[in-house]
């Protein structure tokens, strides 16, 4: 554990950032940064959990003054320095572990209460220690037994390291928990290891634990084993059942589902960004009474200038703001543009976002533009400031096959641009309203279409561009919706309220 900042002030809110703030730029990091900056009446601490030191560069954000504590730890750093020979583990420890494994296998019914041992820090630091797990003969025997029972066709080295890489961070974070200074509330922006650490801290210090899930970790997280080619399924064709995932993937998914449930149980409040996400959380075992939705907010005032700069007419420009990568499904957008340009020859489609992340995909997109003879209509503009783009844009669009809560839609709303998006993540809720009755009454701020359907997309584009009244009503709804429900000050007030409530509830 290396402490980067310690202003020796009381920490009100302790955030646990797994691979995000302040070393990696991205959605969650910006969210944390805005939260700390916006709530200057609270002192924040950040525990950064990274994978390995070599994966990170310098701090990417200007750290706010009310960030009073920052420490850095790594989950996958196997220090080779001290290899403990002759570690002996008590037999009963492993029979208990065996019981736990059985228990986890059967606990899909969510009513089961977790064994108390799992909640106590000393179980991880004293009973089954990192050394016992990594080096003891008993642990080895246990692993090969499990292998023989469940995974006998899996490459053993992969199985072994999967077990190690999955479990080792648990020991890292439980070892950490002891060293973390005092705080009032622990807040984790994800489940996974960060959420697990927050749960242990909450049980150990008897402090409230707030969980915010940006995506659904259990669902989204890609297997982060240190060696990517491990996940090649080495079984022969005849060894596979149709649709069967290989054991290692299963192992991983089961592990994170279990840990996810543990974290849901431990948290005092479970926050999601939109209602669909909340439903998924409940499906995964979260208690509905704890689940609330707090959407992200945008700085509406910051977009008043682009709003004023808009021309009188509707620009015949459809803008897709996003990275040129398969998940954003740029190709469907290009196909839709072919259909639109048949009807409106002078229409333009702008793709605004970095093109270097997946060069192969970018090239395929370029070829598609070429093939469809769209060179005069579809343009890749690279990275641009959205505030310069919005006034020239008629429709903002997202054709992704997966999204969480895309802030860009709200930014577009604030700048007075209606949106056509695929039905993923929170897009439906943002465009049609869905927070509550009032939100639905505001009306449609654009259109939601099914994924990978160029005809439906094109139909929506044409309709909006040609029907000025429809477009105007969408713009009105967009501006109203973002001002009513999605301002940054509302987002901050929501969190301020939760923090204050928690504090008074737990102290009182």
């Amino acid at each position: 554990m290396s402490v980067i900042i310690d202003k020796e002030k009381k920490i009100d809110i302790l955030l646990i950032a797994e691979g995000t703030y302040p070393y990696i730029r991205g959605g969650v990091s910006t969210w944390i940064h805005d939260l700390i900056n916006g709530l200057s009446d609270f002192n924040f601490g950040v525990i950064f959990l990274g994978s390995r030191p070599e994966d990170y560069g310098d701090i990417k954000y200007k750290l706010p003054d009310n960030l009073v504590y920052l420490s850095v730890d790594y989950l996958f750093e196997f220090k080779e320095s001290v290899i403990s020979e002759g570690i002996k583990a008590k037999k009963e420890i492993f029979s208990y572990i065996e019981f736990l494994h059985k228990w986890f296998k059967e606990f899909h019914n969510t009513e089961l209460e977790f064994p108390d041992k799992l909640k106590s820090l000393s179980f991880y630091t004293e009973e089954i220690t990192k050394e016992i797990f990594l080096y003891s003969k008993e642990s080895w025997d246990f692993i090969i037994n499990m292998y023989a029972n469940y995974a006998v066709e899996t490459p053993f080295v992969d199985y072994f390291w999967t077990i190690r890489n999955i479990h080792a961070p648990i020991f890292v974070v439980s070892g950490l928990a002891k060293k973390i200074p005092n705080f009032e509330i622990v807040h984790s922006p994800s489940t996974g290891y960060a959420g697990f650490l927050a749960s242990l801290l909450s049980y150990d210090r008897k402090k409230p634990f707030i969980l915010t899930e940006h995506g659904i970790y259990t669902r989204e997280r890609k297997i982060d084993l240190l060696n990517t080619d491990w996940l090649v399924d080495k079984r022969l064709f005849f060894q596979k059942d149709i649709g069967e995932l290989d054991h290692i993937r299963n192992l991983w998914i089961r592990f994170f589902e279990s840990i996810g449930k543990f974290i849901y149980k431990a948290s005092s409040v479970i926050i999601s960004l939109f209602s669909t996400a909340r439903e998924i959380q409940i499906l995964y075992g979260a208690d509905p009474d704890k689940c609330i939705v707090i959407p992200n907010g945008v700085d509406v005032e910051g977009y008043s200038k682009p709003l004023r700069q808009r021309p009188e007419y509707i620009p015949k420009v459809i803008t897709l703001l996003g990275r040129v990568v398969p998940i954003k499904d740029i190709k469907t957008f290009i196909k839709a543009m072919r259909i639109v340009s048949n009807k409106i020859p002078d229409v333009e489609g702008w793709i605004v976002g970095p093109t270097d992340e997946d060069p192969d995909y970018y090239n395929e997109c370029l070829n598609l533009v070429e093939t469809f003879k769209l060179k005069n209509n579809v343009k890749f503009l690279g990275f641009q400031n959205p505030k310069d783009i919005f006034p020239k844009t008629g429709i903002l669009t997202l054709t992704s096959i997966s999204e969480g809560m895309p802030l860009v839609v709200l930014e577009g709303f604030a700048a007075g641009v209606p949106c056509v998006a695929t039905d993923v993540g929170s897009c439906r809720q943002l465009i049609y309203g869905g927070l509550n009755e009032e939100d639905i009454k505001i009306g449609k701020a654009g259109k939601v279409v099914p994924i990978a359907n160029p005809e439906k997309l094109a139909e929506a584009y044409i309709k909006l561009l040609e029907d000025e009244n429809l477009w105007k009503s969408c713009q009105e709804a967009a501006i109203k919706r973002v001002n009513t429900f999605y301002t940054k000050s509302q987002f901050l007030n929501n969190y301020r309220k939760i923090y204050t409530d928690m504090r008074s509830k737990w102290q009182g």
Partner: protein
Amino acid sequence: MAGISFELRKVLRERTLGSIAKAFGYSTFLSAGPYLISITTLILSYYLLSPFVSDKRVIIQFQVIITYLVAFSLILTGFSQLMITRFIADRIFEKKYNLVLPNLLGNMILNMAIGFIISLLFGLIFFKEQGSLFIILYSFNYTIFCGLWIVNVVLSSLKSYKFIVLSFALGYLTFLVLSLLFVKFGLNGLLLSFFLGQSLLFYMLIGYMIKNHDSDSILRFDFFDKDKIYISLIFSGFFYNIGVWVDKFVFWFTPFTSVEILGPIRSSLVYDIPMFLAYISIAPGMAIFFLKLEMEFAEYYDRYYKAVREGATLPKIYEYGDEMILSARNVVLDTMRIQGIAFVIFLLFDEFLLKLFNISLLYIPLLHILMLGTYLQLIFMSILAILNYFDRRIEAMVSSLIFAITNFIFSLITIYLGPYYYGYGFIFSLLVSNVVAIILLRRFLDEVHYRTFMFV
């Protein structure tokens, strides 16, 4: 090694008795070549030079001095031998080829510098009467030896056996020819010719090393880097070399088993001559050990670790592991078997051989005992080699330390027990060390899978 094992396999594929003999001969030549060449040349030089000297004591003095130089240079470089070999193997594994040569040279120069200083001081203190020329030749010879062992051990690990044997043959031939010319200058003449022969051998090996390794620097001392140095290997090499020589020291420095040769240098006729012969007798076992280790065992070893790395299932890994363990056992057992047969043959022909070399038959009883001792030392070497193969550094070090301590103590005890017991100290020390090494090796192999995976 690929080259050597390939050639051996090609020879063996003919599947005739002749081909086995050929492979065996080739293997003997490669594995035991260097030490057979040096020992026999030293023994031969006595018969060759005798007619040309008035006082045979000069030759004896020369032989004993060289023996001392060998002993003390091996002990001094013992600290470096395993350590630098491992360092270079690690760099090759990392594909940092340009670090190989400068570090070898750095370590070699270091050993030579220390060797030169020590031998010069030693000479100035003890050999004042011999004159400055003697002191210079003596320390030059010592320095060359120190450099030679380092290059030799590294080249051996790089499997350049053929070239090593060739260089040894040329170097010692040069010495023999020159010694005939210079013998009229007495001891200094012999030392000079030996120095020139050794220099030729040494520069051939160094030249070969430089020719085959590119580098952008001449000397580097990266091997001192605390992350890359294995203290256990330093002591392992040192203890082993002490162990090999300590019984000889005991006999050399016990007044009633030894005679003064020159200043502080003493020798023990009763012990040294049979010891020389006993070391020659283990050449066949050396050859078999070499064949088995480098051909069979290496293959099973690679297969096991490849299966581990490349994602075999656990039953497969077990199967390969068992075969590897069996093969390790076979290395030791076959060495024992073949050397056992050789031992019996030497027993049958001992009289004949001693007469051939014109050595007194009084040595026969002690020769038998010491042959058994060197036989056990060969077994010990094979177990250590396997321990080192598996990178069991601590086990190898402990075994070597036990060998050094017991050989010293037991040899001292035999001195007090009297002439009938000479040589038994050496035998019993090796028995104890072998038992310890085998227990340690077995303990590791029992848990080989566990250790392979859990202690990466």
